[in-house]
């Protein structure tokens, strides 16, 4: 969570990540009549992950909108609503279903502000439950964040825990820029303390979640928890790993990564997305440029393979796991 400078015990409660987003959406709906929720099954059902549970009941069909089954239509009409002054938060049901909306996102949502020389603002949040590890069928486990981060005009974020999920959603909705909000679906049920009064740090700032001296692990979304486990395991072997939760992929907080690497001199980046042209490529390229004389080892990357996300019974092999990350850590330390 972004530096919570104040906290009263009474305003902090333990919440699952999905529930934290639900509460955050509720707060946004309450505090700004222009906020809308849109998507397939977000209304009566409350979303297939129940992230919007109860919102239509409390805010009505005019604010929490079950849409036709058409993702381009969802994003395209959200753009129109934003032009009219609304702040739509749209849900794409699963990662693999965002592509029918890709044209509207890349060509319209991302570029209209620039096209208008700043006259038009499109405060649209596109929520995408993403990533694997839940034993799902095809198209329900992908990590397409690089395909959005490469596109200027979009901001791309992904919380790793309930508290960040709560606050980053608040900030994403308040942002006047379109934000692609990747929700780590396999962490939906993970609980954490959420202080709904804490003043959060900036949305796009990375966070050191564990300090260390020998090597930096960079991750975001679902992989942060894994990296914390890796760091704990490594600690038992006497290795001190620093874990950085990026939180934001565009913009990416290179300053924080650089600061950590200047200290540890070694960097491993972990994400579920395929390594080839994944966000780790950019981090490796840029940090190598920034820290050329500091790095004792090349930046190593652990991620998905250059293959379609495999059937559920193979996902454990496909996804970065404790051993694979430790293996990369060992290799980096061996330089």
């Amino acid at each position, binding site marked *: 969570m972004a530096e919570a400078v104040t906290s009263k015990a009474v305003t902090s409660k333990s919440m699952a990540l999905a529930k934290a987003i639900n509460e955050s959406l509720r707060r946004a709906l309450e505090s700004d*009549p*222009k906020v809308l929720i849109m998507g*397939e*099954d977000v*209304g*009566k*059902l*409350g979303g*297939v992950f129940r992230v919007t549970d109860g919102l239509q009941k409390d805010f009505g*069909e*005019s*604010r929490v909108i*079950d*849409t*036709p*089954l*058409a993702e*381009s*239509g969802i994003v395209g009409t959200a753009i129109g609503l934003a032009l009219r002054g609304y702040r739509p938060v749209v849900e794409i049901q699963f990662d*693999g*279903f965002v*592509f*029918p909306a890709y044209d509207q996102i890349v060509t319209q949502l991302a570029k209209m502000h620039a096209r208008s020389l700043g006259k038009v603002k499109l405060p649209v949040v596109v929520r995408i439950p993403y990533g694997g590890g839940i*034993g*799902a*069928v*095809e*198209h329900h486990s992908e990590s397409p964040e690089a395909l959005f981060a490469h596109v200027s005009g979009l901001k791309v974020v992904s919380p790793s825990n309930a508290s960040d999920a709560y606050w980053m959603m608040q900030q994403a909705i308040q942002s006047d820029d379109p934000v692609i909000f990747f929700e780590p679906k396999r962490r939906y049920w993970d609980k954490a303390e959420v202080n709904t009064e804490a003043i959060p740090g900036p949305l796009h700032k990375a966070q050191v979640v564990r300090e260390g001296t020998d090597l930096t692990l960079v991750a975001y979304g679902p992989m942060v928890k894994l990296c914390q486990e890796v760091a704990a*395991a490594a600690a038992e072997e006497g290795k001190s790993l620093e874990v950085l939760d990026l939180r934001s992929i565009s913009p990416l907080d290179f300053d924080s990564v650089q600061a950590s690497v200047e200290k540890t001199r070694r960097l491993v980046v972990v994400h579920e997305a395929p390594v*080839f042209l994944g966000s780790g490529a950019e981090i490796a390229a840029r940090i190598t440029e920034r820290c050329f004389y500091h790095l004792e080892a090349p930046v190593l990357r652990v991620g998905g*393979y*250059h*293959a*379609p996300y*495999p*059937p*559920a*019974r*193979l996902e454990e*092999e*496909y996804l970065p796991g*404790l*051993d*694979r990350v*430790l*293996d990369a850590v060992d290799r980096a330390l061996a330089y």
Partner: protein
Amino acid sequence: MTVESTAARKPRRSAGTKSTAGKTTTARKSPSTDPQLVQLLTPEGERVKNAEYDEYVAGITPDELRGLYRDMVLTRRFDAEATSLQRQGELGLWASLLGQEAAQIGSGRATREDDYVFPTYREHGVAWCRGVDPTNLLGMFRGVNNGGWDPSSNNFHLYTIVIGSQTLHATGYAMGITKDGADSAVIAYFGDGASSQGDVAESFTFSAVYNAPVVFFCQNNQWAISEPTEKQTRVPLYQRAQGFGFPGVRVDGNDVLACLAVTKWALERARRGEGPTLVEAYTYRMGAHTTSDDPTKYRADEEREAWEAKDPILRLRRYLEASNHADEGFFAELEAESEALGKRVREAVRAMPDPDHFAIFENVYADGHALVDEERAQFAAYQASFADEGGH
């Protein structure tokens, strides 16, 4: 201009939509009374005449009628088995076709061997008609593959999960048939929810412009997960076709005879070079969307109960019995056959091996790819390191 003032406008439609949104069925026309609905068998199992479509089932033999009944019963049995296998943890997910047997068996049996079928993820009955071994369908739901049968063995394409995409593949395939000078036809399945996807509209445009021999078979089962059809359209879906320049027809999707007849008619139009047709099979999803879904969150039990009276299997049984086309022995034998099928499926699923880890790297490319090769080698070395060291 506040949000509260929305009510001031009261468009007639919104009001109407609200009241029917999954709460009651009163606002919906009953399929058996809708004059636009092609029906050959009433829910009570009575054969009704239909000037236009009777000819397409005119020569049907008692044997064939029993065959349709058998298809529906075995499909339902298979479906129930899969649902229970999911509950037992043998499958990760199951999308049940319960209630849609007539739509699928009727249309599936209308196809010719050389026709080509593009299903969604729910066409287990159609797969059955095409001769696909039902256990093949379970691989993706078990998570051992993402499909994996050979579509060309039975001219039954892989299941398509991303809604609507397959309607374009079907149209392209049909364009290819025309280029080949063949008289096969294509049938593309999709749901009421899918009708909203741009791809489906584009497939209507392409098939009309190229006069492609394709039948669009929409199973309107009233629901797209939690959304009733009113969230996709405000007029009956079969009417969509007209504005693209080809006919649309609504058939009683719980009437296997009507589905057979209408689909035959549409396929024959396609063969004759008359182009695409949209068939809307008006039916009902009796179960949950998938085993992950809980329909009690969004729809009333009464709706389901009303549709139970229109059960597709029951109605054909009544007809078979009333017309003495099937005797006790037939039903008993079928019951035994059902049991055997259930057992075979159960055993086959349990025996299904997990895929080899290296399968991740297989079939990514037909002609190979250097990066895949490199990653496969790294993976092999990494795997081997555990054999050596026993891991961390």
